[in-house]
Every structure is written in structure tokens, then in C-alpha cells.
């Protein structure tokens, strides 16, 4: 996927978000650190433009909710979590790649500590399959079939200088 394909996917995803959330009234768009945050910010911008709204926005770092603290070795840096009150709202969680589902499991746990949303939707740019938990995305940019050893890298302008989705197949 190049920058134009990503732009097309994001604008379609933005209208799907509004459609599925039935408007922007109670909507909160929440990005998962780090690239999910950049994608979420762009989706919020697209929704704001299309709907002339100011949609609520949040960031989520799931490091402290991971189930593998003992196993992961060099301690990952803990990022910022900045969420509005989620009570009664429609929360759209945005991430770059959906793979095992464990990040999303952790994100759902963390959201639950910030109130009881009326509904949570999952929106990802790439679904690469390989789930280890019963979790599915509601809104998907593109689906790629991959083998377990493959790597899927989402690059974003803000952090990587360009927009792209790249798949590195395992040797």
C-alpha cells in the first residue's frame, strides 16, 4: 500500500465510522500508541471535516495492561494514556495492524477503567489474520494474508517520513 492507497482507505474508514456510530454526537476516537494514535488523529480530522464536528479524541498506551511483562525482556517504554470520560459513549479504537488480538484485549481492559462505553468499535488499517483471541475488527482498511513469521510494517508520515504498508515475508 502506498500513500494514495492509504489516503483512500482512511477516507472510506472515516465515513464508515460516522455511519456505524450513527453520527458524531457521542463519538470518541481513540488511538493505540504509537502509530494507531497518528492514524486516529487523521481519521478524526476527516470526520471533523466531513461532518463539521469536533469529535472527542484520546490516546491509549496498553503497555501496563499487557499479559507478557515477564516475557518481553527489554522493558518497553511506557507511553502516554490520555482518555476522556468514556461513560455512555461510542468508542472507536484505532490501531495500525490487527494480528493476534492481544493488544486489543488489553485496550478493552484499559477502556473499562475509564467508564462504561455504550459501545466499542474496532478500526484497523491492516488486518493480517493470525488471531489468538476471539476478536474481530469492525472497520478494516485492507486485509492481507500472512504467515506467522512475516512482518507487517505500517509507516506514517509523522513518525517515519512517509505513508506505506510493507510486508516482509519470513525467509
Amino acid at each position, binding site marked *: 500500500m502506498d500513500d494514495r492507497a492509504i489516503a483512500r482507505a482512511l477516507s472510506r474508514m472515516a465515513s464508515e465510522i460516522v455511519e456505524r456510530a450513527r453520527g458524531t454526537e457521542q463519538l470518541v476516537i481513540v488511538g*493505540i500508541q504509537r502509530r494507531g494514535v497518528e492514524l486516529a488523529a487523521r481519521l478524526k480530522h476527516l470526520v471533523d471535516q466531513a461532518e463539521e464536528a469536533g469529535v472527542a479524541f484520546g490516546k491509549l498506551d496498553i503497555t501496563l495492561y499487557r499479559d507478557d*511483562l515477564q516475557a518481553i525482556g527489554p*522493558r518497553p517504554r511506557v507511553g*502516554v494514556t490520555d482518555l476522556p470520560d468514556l461513560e455512555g459513549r461510542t468508542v472507536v479504537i484505532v490501531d495500525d495492524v490487527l494480528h493476534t488480538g492481544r493488544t486489543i484485549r488489553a485496550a478493552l481492559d484499559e477502556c473499562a477503567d475509564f467508564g462504561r462505553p455504550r459501545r466499542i468499535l474496532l478500526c484497523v488499517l491492516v488486518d493480517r489474520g493470525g488471531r489468538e483471541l476471539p476478536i474481530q475488527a469492525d472497520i478494516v482498511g485492507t486485509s492481507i494474508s500472512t504467515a506467522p513469521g512475516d512482518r507487517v510494517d505500517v509507516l506514517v508520515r509523522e513518525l517515519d517520513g512517509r505513508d506505506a504498508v510493507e510486508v516482509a515475508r519470513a525467509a
Partner: protein
Amino acid sequence: MQPDVPSLGKDLVGLEHLSADQLRLILDTAEPFKEVSERQIKKVPALRGRTIVNLFFEASTRTRISFEFAEKRLSADTVSIAASGSSVSKGETLVDTARNLEAMRIDMVVIRHHSSGSAEFLGKRIRSNVINAGDGKHEHPTQGLLDILTLRDKFGKIEGLKVAICGDVLHSRVARSNIWGLTKLGAEVAVCGPASLLPRNVTELGVTVIPRIEDAIAWADALNVLRLQLERMQSGFIPSLREYNRVFGLTVDRLERAPKDLVIMHPGPMNRGVEIDSGVADGPHSVILPQVTNGVAVRMAVLYLLAGGSPDATQQGGGEA
């Protein structure tokens, strides 16, 4: 992939043996933990299922409660033991106490002890992580870290900052941890106090001595005012508390003559009217309560970093959910 992140090793005994990178890792990790304490539900599951024993052989309110909050906010299971009312008062040795606790399958020990070196001694003899919560006159690393974090919050950086540590430096583990941590991060540190309460050869620690409090106030960006332990008077280190206040006390009057606004810190508990006046402690430049708030965040960071697995395991590919 993650860039190389320094590890803290098994125990936190003091700041003397930490590198500047390790100190920064703890301070940076403390930042997101501040936010956890502002949440309505002040709890994250990071240390779920870990068992931590707080072993306090010396009286402590602030430090013990701060560690307990830090542990609970990380979802660890904790037990606090005070020396009085435990088998320690029946003559059990430190190692025996710790080994018995380990036999109950604990993961970490937070220890406060009146003997310098006790935390390191214990760390070498048990498998659990050991965190020093103050050992004799040696170090009080988490206090040093929370002081440095508070300064960093206030000034944006530590490098080039002028910090004067005032009072009973001789008996102070807080002073020692501050000196190690601040100098490693590039601050200039001075000590100020009665000659009887400054360690001999203190300049070997990389600090300067400023004999008069007025000069320290004129020089420094921040003052860390140490508690004057009242029993020091009985043991002849100072003539009287009133005399101490007159010569070395941080008074409103002295502070008003400072050429610039100073940040005022105190590790607590304060002796109002001895080393610090109420007008200063409660004044606009005091960060004494923010220090206490930061204490919980710093301790959460230390607990989290020490609990986080072996440093040789490799991080899984980034960006994958």
C-alpha cells in the same frame, strides 16, 4: 524493534551504581505513572499476581505508605511488616526473616533498615528483587529519584542546575542519594550546614561546600532542606534548635533577599521553625507536596522496571497488534 533500553538489574540499592541512562529510564518511566494516579480508577494490572513484602525495621509513614500505594496501583499483592510486633523483635536475623518470606514465594522485598548496606546485603542473599527504602546513613534511592523528578518537572532539565542541600548532610541518606543522582545527570551540587554536620571529605563526592545559608540561597536554583533530627542536639552536634534556626534556618526573611525565585524542597517530616519556617514550607516556591505526589510515580516506575523480566529476552516485532 525497541532500541537498546538499559536494564536496572535485580535490585535497586542506591543511585551510586546507576548510570545516567538508567536514571533517565526511571524518570521517563515515572511520567506515564503520574497519570495513573489521576484516574478515577487508580489501578493498572501490570504487576497482577506479584507478591511484595514491605519490610520496615525503622519507623516510616510517608515512604511506607507511598510504596504501598505504588504497589496497589500496579495491582500487586502486598504485605507490610514492621519490626515491632514481628519475629524480628524475638531476635531473628535479617536473612532468616527474608528467607522465611521467600519460602512463602514472594517476588519483591522493599526494605528500610537502620544499618547502612543492609539492602545490598539482603539482595545478594535472596532471589527476590530488593528495593532499598532507606538503609542507615547510606542511601534512600527512591527519595533521591523523586527529588530529581520534581526538579525536572519544575526546570525542564537537570543538566546545569544548581542545587544546594542544606542541613544535616552527615547523617542523611537522602543527601547521599541526591548527590549521586544529581551529579550524574549534570547538576552542580553544593552542601550547606554546620561543619559538625557535614561529612569529612564531602567534596570527594563532587560537591562544593557553602558554609553560610545566605550564600547558598544566593547561589542556588533550588534548595533541598534536610530534616534536622532532634536527637542530634542531645548528642552535641549543635548547641540548640533555636541557635540552628537562627544561623541555618530557611526563613522567609532570608528567602526574600534571594536574587531570584528558588524552588524549595524538603523530604519530610518537617520540623517547622527549626530547619524551615512555615512561611517558606507553605509558600509559593515550595514543592514539598508535589514531591510526595511524585514519590508514588517514581516508586511505581522502579517496581515496574525491576519486575519486567530478564534483559536478554528479545522484544517481539513492533507495530503488530
